[in-house]
């Protein structure tokens, strides 16, 4: 069944939108799926109708041919969507919920997940700790730059937006919760940014700008952004979102 369309990696410098299989509550064999993940049952998962899915700078590393990503990989790990089907073992997530999908796939059951280290879950990728959708070495889970996608461990993972209409109204902001906003915030938080800090950020791409905004939210007194790209540096000036607005 091909009732789905997705962005597919076709080799260095080349992506295409192709017909792809409609997702099932199981991980089928495909590009980059480790043997022991093939036919893994996901009755704890849901099928999402994708509302928004963002292109990430980390996708570009693959598309430039700078990783060992296999051809045919469906890309996309920044996924926001509406639940349209729930698996047998899902207790709390409901059809119609509008949800943000954390890009780190995590089981919620291992020691790492139980201590909030969902980025290094030990149960979702036989090859190394941690997994993600549509990413090289990340367990072979099918990416979400598509019309429909399967999300495992739905009760544990999904962030349900409290109000559907408000969520759709703010979707351009909320879509950033899957990866880029937490990633920028994590960069600032783990660097120790606090009230009064002076912060330097190398890189004025989206993650750098998300980090700059996060540093401001954390109370930095000065945020300095550097880049070799004049257009991005100009965007950093434009993006200087003061919290007093």
């Amino acid at each position, binding site marked *: 069944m091909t009732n789905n369309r997705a962005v597919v990696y076709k080799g260095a410098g080349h992506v295409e939108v192709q017909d792809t299989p409609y997702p099932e509550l199981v991980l089928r064999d495909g590009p980059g799926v480790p043997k022991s993940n093939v036919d893994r049952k996901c009755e704890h998962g849901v099928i999402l109708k994708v509302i928004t899915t963002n292109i990430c700078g980390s*996708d570009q590393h693959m598309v430039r041919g700078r990783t060992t990503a296999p051809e045919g990989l469906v890309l996309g790990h920044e996924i926001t969507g509406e639940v349209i089907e729930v698996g047998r073992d899902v207790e709390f997530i409901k059809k119609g919920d509008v949800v943000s999908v954390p890009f780190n796939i995590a089981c919620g059951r291992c020691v790492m997940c139980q201590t909030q280290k969902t980025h290094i879950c030990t149960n979702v990728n036989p090859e190394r700790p941690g997994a993600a959708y549509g990413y090289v070495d990340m367990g072979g889970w099918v990416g979400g730059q598509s019309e429909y996608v399967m999300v495992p461990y739905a009760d544990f993972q999904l962030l349900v937006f409290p109000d559907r209409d408000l969520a759709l109204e703010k979707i351009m902001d909320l879509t950033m919760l899957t990866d880029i906003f937490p990633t920028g915030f994590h960069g600032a938080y783990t660097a120790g940014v606090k009230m009064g800090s002076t912060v330097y950020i190398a890189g004025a791409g989206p993650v750098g700008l998300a980090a700059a905004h996060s540093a401001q939210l954390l109370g930095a007194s000065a945020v300095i952004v550097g880049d070799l790209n004049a257009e991005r540096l100009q965007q950093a000036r434009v993006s200087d979102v003061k919290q007093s607005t």
Partner: protein
Amino acid sequence: MDAVGFEASGHGESGEQPAAVLNAIMDVTQAGGGLGIPGLYVTDDPGGVDEDAKTGSLKVRFGLGWAKAHTFATGQTPAMQYNRNLMKSILSGKAQIAKAVNAQLITLDEAPKGYEDFDKGAAKKFVIDPHGMVNS
């Protein structure tokens, strides 16, 4: 903070220098400071600038960071530690992340063009709307 990763270029020099940003942030950060590294580094890079870079071994001046007692924060972000509170900041209007990153809505069919433009250095964050559900 390093928001560039392993495909970094050096300042004023031509070509890729994968350790350039890590070395630069150690250089500019005060002693005792923290280095947040959301920029991505890999264990296998077929396009690495030399044999070492192909396996993620970079010329990092670690002694400088050690001398300045820097802390290094690496790895994927555990998104679930932050997403709920950041959602509340968005819904309250405190955080304006779409504006901060210059979000640009595109269709699924426009995704290959989005990749191309982003690769060329477009100052935008591309958001794909596969079903045309978003009013912008």
